[in-house]
């Protein structure tokens, strides 16, 4: 269709020919700062809290389960298939359904559930960010449709920031069709610049760091 | 023998604010320079360049290059005119190697007045005295093209009897912009009024800047609003005793 036309116009405009070699691009610029584990976790939680996220640091899987149980308080929840959630016993909590592998049923449940519970592939300390890769363990909808999202993160997964993430994961496309960085609850300031949370995504997020 | 500087007063100072030129010459002499005024000078060509008339701008720029070709230093009481000479002559003469060469050779010798004092004369106290409360307006070209921000404030800080109060919108454009002021008068006027609102909030009696075109715009708006605040070029403040 227009492919040849457009590529031809581009080359003509640039004075290049088809298949012409390209000089090296400017070097990749990644600056990973030194931050020990404790500092990373503390910084992460501080930043999540600054974004109106709720935070909890626990030493064990049981403690994580207890916290999630307290947030649940009788409400309904969907949990992802993250092995860590099962290890913590979170998938067994009353009111929690998990183990879905089919999109339609998962979506239907997420649409009515009060809470979505997931793990997180990584967390970024300097921006208070959760990194979620879509996979058989983690569906997209769980951290998106329900109005509350709880992420249970293993402390080793906490990185200093985006630069470190891209250092250890230079080609996210090789792993997943969707990598999402989640920094705080959904928000907008579209009307009179007044901040409102929970427009389409969750209005409340909890980050639980375990370890 | 005393060091020499040539002054390019700019057409607006020559015709509308001559005291600025005299003040600048006074201050330069006090700083130990012999001041020379090449009489054939007229304009840097900015009005034409700004309005899109490059051919006409080129003619005037060529004349400028001729007049100041042998100057050791050219000191200018305006950031925008200095910018025209130092940054835009090169663009004008892309197809004229001789003029391009001349412009390139002259550029390092052309200085905005306050920057000349600070960085060439290495003088930040000229022994001035002015009992007044002033606020300083950062002229856009001076600020953004030459980084002129601390220099004028340092110079003002040494003026005896002077109190400097910062306005919140010091770095916002006054709205002159050359032909912009007459092609989009309402917008230009609105910008001037925003500027004077900021000035009034300081309670200062005088507005100081390094560009007479800004001062003309600001003074025009102050006067139209019937406000008793006056404007002074930095040179005039520094020449005060």
């Amino acid at each position, binding site marked *: 269709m227009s492919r040849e036309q457009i590529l031809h116009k581009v080359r003509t405009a640039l004075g290049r020919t088809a298949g012409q070699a390209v000089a090296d691009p400017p070097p990749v610029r990644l600056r990973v700062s030194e931050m020990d584990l404790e500092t990373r976790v503390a910084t992460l939680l501080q930043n999540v809290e600054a974004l109106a996220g709720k935070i909890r640091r626990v030493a064990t899987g049981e403690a994580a389960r207890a916290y999630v149980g307290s947030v649940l308080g009788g409400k309904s929840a969907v949990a992802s298939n993250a092995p860590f959630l099962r290890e913590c016993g979170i998938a067994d909590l009353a009111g929690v359904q998990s183990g879905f592998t089919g999109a339609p049923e998962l979506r239907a449940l997420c649409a009515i559930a009060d809470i979505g519970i997931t793990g997180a592939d990584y967390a970024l300390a300097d921006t208070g960010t959760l990194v979620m890769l879509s996979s058989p363990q983690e569906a997209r909808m769980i951290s998106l449709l329900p109005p509350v999202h709880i992420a249970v993160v293993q402390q080793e997964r906490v990185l200093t920031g985006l630069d470190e993430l891209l250092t250890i994961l*230079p080609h996210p496309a090789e792993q997943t069709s969707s990598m999402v960085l989640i920094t705080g609850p959904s928000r907008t*300031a579209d*009307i009179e610049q*007044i901040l409102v949370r929970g427009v389409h995504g969750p209005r409340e997020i909890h980050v639980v760091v375990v370890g | 023998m005393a060091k020499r500087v040539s002054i390019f007063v700019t057409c607006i100072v020559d015709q509308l604010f001559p005291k600025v030129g005299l003040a600048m010459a006074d201050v330069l002499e006090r700083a130990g320079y012999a001041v020379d005024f090449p009489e054939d000078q007229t304009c840097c060509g900015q009005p034409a360049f700004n309005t899109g008339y490059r051919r*006409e701008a080129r003619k005037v720029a060529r004349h400028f290059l001729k007049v100041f070709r042998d100057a050791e230093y050219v000191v200018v009481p305006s950031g925008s005119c200095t910018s025209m000479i130092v940054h835009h002559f090169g663009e004008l003469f892309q197809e004229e190697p001789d003029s391009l060469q001349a412009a390139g050779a002259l550029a390092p010798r052309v200085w905005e007045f306050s920057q000349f004092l600070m960085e060439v004369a290495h003088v930040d106290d000229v022994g001035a005295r002015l009992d007044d409360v002033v606020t300083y307006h950062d002229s856009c070209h001076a600020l953004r093209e030459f980084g002129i921000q601390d220099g004028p404030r340092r110079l003002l800080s040494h003026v005896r009897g002077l109190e400097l109060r910062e306005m919140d919108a010091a770095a916002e454009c006054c709205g002159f912009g050359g032909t*912009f002021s007459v092609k989009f008068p309402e917008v230009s006027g609105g910008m001037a009024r925003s500027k004077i609102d900021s000035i009034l909030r300081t309670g200062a009696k005088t507005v100081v800047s390094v560009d007479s075109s800004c001062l003309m715009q600001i003074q025009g708006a102050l006067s139209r609003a019937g406000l008793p605040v006056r404007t002074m070029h930095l040179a005039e403040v520094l020449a005060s005793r």
Partner: protein
Amino acid sequence: MSAAFDEKIHNTLADANLQLAIYAATGRLIDHRKHAVAGAALPDYQELRTHANALKKHTIDNLDHYLEQFEANVAAHGGKVVYCKDGTEVADFVLGLAKERHAELIVKSKSMTTEEIDLNERLAHHQLESVETDLGEYILQLAHQRPYHIVAPALHLTRYDVGDLFARTLGVANETVVEKQALIARTVLRQKFLAADIGITGGNFLVADSGAVVLVENEGNARLTTSAPKIHIAVAGIEKLIPRAQDLAVFLKLLGRSATGQALTVYTSFLSGPRRPDEIDGPEEFYVVLLDNGRTKLLANREHRQSLYCIRCGACLNHCPVYRKIGGHSFPWVYSGPIGAIITPQFLGVNHEPGLPFASSLCGACAEVCPVKIDIPKILLDLRAEVKNSEEREGKGRLERLAFKLWAWVMCHPRIYEMAAKAASGMAPAEDGRWLRRVPAVMDLPPLRAWLSQRDLPPAPGKSFREMWRKR
């Protein structure tokens, strides 16, 4: 400039409430950005800008290479690239696909590129419902209005406007509490997300080495748009390419901070291809529409090609004292502010709105805050010269040209200059701010009338500098 341009400007200036709204909104964004890029918050801000400019320059200068690399990688992950030369081709593609798939409902996330080609209007023509899901854009769609600002599209509307609008178009009670208005939109739009057949987005960045589309947002509507429907179509200009995923470390650090002062927006999605076979949810089909629509024209101008580096942060709009007075709707095209002022003439021709490059005081605030260092003032100056050259060719603007010719001649003849200046000042009584009133013909000159409409003239000094110098 055109009468239409003048009129829109005048009306905006005359609307006191609108002036306040624009000033407050942009003021807030200015403050947020300032804190986000200040020393301690981002110590290598200037270095990042330099790097971003270099990355964009390299990519744009070799765009064909990166387009092909991107295309191959999209395909490798199960997606498809579609090149479209204009809005008609984009619409044809979407309509064709919709027909094949029996699609009836489209959800859209915010995309200036789709505004540029009026995609919704084109689709509506063919009974295909396309619903905007970004709150600001949804409001505008209901109100049949254009975005007011690249990042804050509904900045000119109040909550009362929104209350009235929702009541009128959605049949709900008139609600003026903003949280409740957002809830109304959330409820309506959620049904749309879950029922939609196709999700259309823009693309903040297209990553060549990954075949990925990066979407940056705060609400979650882009995530829903790209996760709920079975088909995802991303529409992006060819200039959105960056070489590597790792380059996001530079661009993402600059985009959020420059736009809203956020280190990262709430959601940043990195999407490549439809869902993988073992993933649970996500679209089954993934298309990236690469749009030309005149970009190849801009590419051809070596000096102005940098206009294509823009990452649509909106910082130039926020800091522009002219935008802050005339607002987004005074501009003749979908792109407003300084970036709009330089790309509109390049896309639509300098004669589309000849006044546009002149609607600037050249203060340089835009260039100072542009994260990719586009030299906007230089391009404005170049465009001014183009306008005047075009006028000359068409025999327009003779009087002004003659005036400048005469002016230049006088300025090249110092003795004549002195005489002319003396003659002019001779018409003025000393120290009188309204001195030229004596000469009605002079007063009628448009520039003088324009000046005097807003401010006084300086008092006549009596003697010129050179006269005083000679007497010194």
